[in-house]
């Protein structure tokens, strides 16, 4: 069977070759060529509009980030506040909850792929005495909105393409982004500091149209799940190595580490998590509540 997969990014984003590329390859191998996947990128459907076409059956699979369909539901976004441990996540029953939620929207959860790293701020000036981002203008998307405010900064909305020039000219004092990005987009040239500790976990989710899923044989379904489950672990390991290299490369390129203040540093992960859970509850209703409760119960979130 030939499946189409819609990806929110093209090959330049490192999660695509690591997860999508590997997924396609391993699936073909394990199914002895029975299952093949054709990948379509963001030039086919814009990233923020991809959930519905997959739910509606125009494409079979989706590889995206939970925040990209935050307008529809915040359920998958919640994973960014869940401890980065693929095995513990699988065992906790969280995936069943998320799966059930997406099934009501005509989608099946295939896997959650962690980049083994989180988010940080790139800053022009080091963290000052306030230990936070007091009075600074920070370019941030909806993902970090609550967190920036919690750190007493002001959110500036700019498209990613404007980050370089706005950092360079001081239009913003900093930008929030996953820890991968500063090298690829050369932001290290226009900012001097990166904040530590990092916070949250960057996750990509893979979903499948429910009818497509139900139309597969039990054997095909098992193969897909097996590949996904293995890749959650092996792909994460690839990313752990990538992240170590990226961290070294950023410091080599001149990005200095600036620590949040002693009062703030232990709390940044919780601040981020709180913002995420707020969105999850707002955007995924009762299922979101249940998700948050379960994560707290299992000790898989800091908030």
């Amino acid at each position, binding site marked *: 069977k030939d499946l189409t997969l819609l990806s929110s990014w093209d090959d330049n984003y490192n999660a695509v070759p690591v997860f999508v590329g590997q997924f396609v390859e391993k699936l073909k191998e394990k199914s002895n060529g029975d299952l093949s996947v054709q990948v379509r990128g963001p030039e086919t459907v814009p990233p923020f509009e991809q959930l*519905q076409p997959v739910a509606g059956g125009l494409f079979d699979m989706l590889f995206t980030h939970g*925040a*990209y369909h935050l307008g529809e539901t915040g359920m998958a976004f919640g994973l960014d506040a869940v401890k980065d441990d693929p095995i513990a996540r699988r065992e906790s029953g969280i995936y069943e909850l998320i799966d059930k939620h997406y099934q009501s929207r005509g989608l099946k959860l295939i896997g959650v792929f962690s980049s083994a790293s989180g988010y940080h701020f790139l800053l022009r000036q080091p963290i000052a005495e306030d230990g936070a981002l007091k009075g600074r203008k920070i370019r941030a998307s*909806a993902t970090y909105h609550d967190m920036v405010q919690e750190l007493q900064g*002001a959110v*500036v909305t700019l498209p990613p393409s404007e980050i370089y020039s706005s950092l360079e000219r001081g*239009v913003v004092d900093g930008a929030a982004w996953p820890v991968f990005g500063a090298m690829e987009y050369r932001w290290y040239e226009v900012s001097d500091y990166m904040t530590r500790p990092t916070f949250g976990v960057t996750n990509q989710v893979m979903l499948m149209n429910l009818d497509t899923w139900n139309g597969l044989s039990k054997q095909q379904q098992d193969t897909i799940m097996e590949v996904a489950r293995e890749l959650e672990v092996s792909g994460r390991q690839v990313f752990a190595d990538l992240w170590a290299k990226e961290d070294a490369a950023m410091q080599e390129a001149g990005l200095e580490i600036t620590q949040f203040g002693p009062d703030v540093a232990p709390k940044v992960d919780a601040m981020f998590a709180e913002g995420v859970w707020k969105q999850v509850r707002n955007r995924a209703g009762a299922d979101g509540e249940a998700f948050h409760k379960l994560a707290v119960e299992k000790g898989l979130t800091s908030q």
Partner: protein
Amino acid sequence: MSASGPFRPVRHALCLLAAFQDVITRITFVVAVIASAYLTLVLAWEVIARYALNNPTGWGPDTAAISFALITFCAAPMLAWKSGHANMNMVVNALPEHIAVWLQRFTWLLACTVCLIAAWFGFAELKRVFAGNVMMIAVTPIPKWWLMLAIVYALSNMGFYFLRHFLCTWAGSCEQNNTGAT
């Protein structure tokens, strides 16, 4: 061609309906004009707030995006009414009149069909985002159905104007007052 006998009431009702459509179109065009002014002012203010006052608004760019979309979708029906949409009429102009009329009828009917099909599926999506309370992805949460409504409005209203243009190629006068651009 003059309307007479049993057709008169039908024709009268149609003209009333057309007049109603025109009023709606004029009103939404005013919305588009206001949206143009808002877009200009809010973005200029955002630059000043961010750069001079060091206090970006957050809602500025979000509402600017909405007002931009409103210009497009609230102004487009007016262009359908006044035949202001960009097209290439060299071929039509070069044809003998009796053939050109039929080509015109074909294009009006095609235009109407395409707009209404798109409007119909837009309406399905409108119902879905309304029922699901889907939000635009922005710093300020704004319901997506506001804009979906504008899109469905633009498509359907344009569809009805193209239908009117089509009917008027048969009926002669009725209510066509294509006085050109505003």
